């Protein structure tokens, strides 16, 4: 089936029904649109009607919207510095010309912070490509599967884009296992003071918000959290607290206790062979023990 080149937020669509029916669509057409975008099955005559009349109207509306917004869609406007927004719009145009027909958006500290390192330009492509720097611009390539990721759900909250950035269902598999993994990786990075620890910390914080069913942070909120953790004398202690709280708030207590017990057992086994790292492992599993103490 051919992919539609427009999308609809069905909740919003329902809310504005009175503005649309009967001015733009008939009651019957409105029902068909709802059917289409909630992926319900349609008869052949309904499909024909959809493509013959509704789809054409929708495309036309989309074109008007693009024209009116000049192909610039702004998210989190209240947090963006006004003069930066002007620059971002012009940069977006420049890069939209360079990467023809590609979805491009700008995000990061350039939008909300007086001092910034570089301007992050994100380009959505079919295939993976290496990032590169071009003057003060950092070109980041992302593949299309990013649309259903936690990263995208977070970054879209504060960005300037040449296309509408719809909220999509998160299809990236995030659960207690992935959260334990990222906790282990982060703990190791922080212990080694690895230069890439900021990337791991960012991923950890986004997963923590998702696991604890809290709103996902936008890039400014994420940066503030990152800075305050990194400034702290003992960032590992804060990370442990975030881990424990997120697990307690967002996961099934029985399941989490079982998982934590398994992790402790695994580490106890490793300690038997690698006694020289006992202190590190005990520090790491303290968070698992705290979860058991509270949830168990």
């Amino acid at each position: 089936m051919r992919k539609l080149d427009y999308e609809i937020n069905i909740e919003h669509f329902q809310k504005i029904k009175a503005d649309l029916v009967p001015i733009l669509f008939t009651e019957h057409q409105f029902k068909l649109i709802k059917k289409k975008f909630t992926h319900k099955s349609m008869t052949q005559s309904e499909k024909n009607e959809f493509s013959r009349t509704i789809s054409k109207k929708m495309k036309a509306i989309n074109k008007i919207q693009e024209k009116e917004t000049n192909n610039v869609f702004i998210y989190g406007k209240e947090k963006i510095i006004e003069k930066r927004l002007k620059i971002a719009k012009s940069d977006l145009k420049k890069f939209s010309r360079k990467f023809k027909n590609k979805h491009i958006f700008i995000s990061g500290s350039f939008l909300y912070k007086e001092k910034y390192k570089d301007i992050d330009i994100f380009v959505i492509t079919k295939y993976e490509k290496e990032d590169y720097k071009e003057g003060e611009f950092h070109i980041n390539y992302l593949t299309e599967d990013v649309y259903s990721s936690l990263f995208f759900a977070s970054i879209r909250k504060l960005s300037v884009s040449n296309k509408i950035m719809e909220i999509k269902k998160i299809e990236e598999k995030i659960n207690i296992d992935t959260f334990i993994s990222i906790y282990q990786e982060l703990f190791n990075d922080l212990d080694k003071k690895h230069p890439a620890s900021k990337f791991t910390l960012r991923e950890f914080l986004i997963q923590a918000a998702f696991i604890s069913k809290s709103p996902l942070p936008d890039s400014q909120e994420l940066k503030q959290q990152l800075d305050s953790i990194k400034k702290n004398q003992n960032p590992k202690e804060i990370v442990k607290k975030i881990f424990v709280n997120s697990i307690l708030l967002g996961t099934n207590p029985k399941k989490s206790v079982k998982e934590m017990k398994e992790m402790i057992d695994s580490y106890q086994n490793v300690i038997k062979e690698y006694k020289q790292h006992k202190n590190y492992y005990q520090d790491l599993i303290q968070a698992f023990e705290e979860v058991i103490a509270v949830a168990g």
Partner: protein
Amino acid sequence: MQAEEFKNKVKEILEAEIKFDGHLNQIINNIAEERESSILNWIKECKKGITRPEPCKNYKNLISFIYKSNDNRIREILTKEKNSYFIELFLDKHKYYDRKRKFLGL
């Protein structure tokens, strides 16, 4: 250093006939000598027990050592059987590393 020479050095350090996984040939043939020696030093540290392993959740009999280059582009996973020999060296870019981590339960 060519990939085959690199693999032989790794086997020599670990004193084991290990397997190799990931786009190792491609990466080794395209990285600077300095980076190669940093990877080999890390493998020596794994062998000596200086580097810390993590348990593999999906394979209870395995433990893994994880390496991240400073620029975060190259990742490695060296797998070992608990209280026994080294099994496999995985070397690749971030995306494939994530898949391998999930597979092992790291």
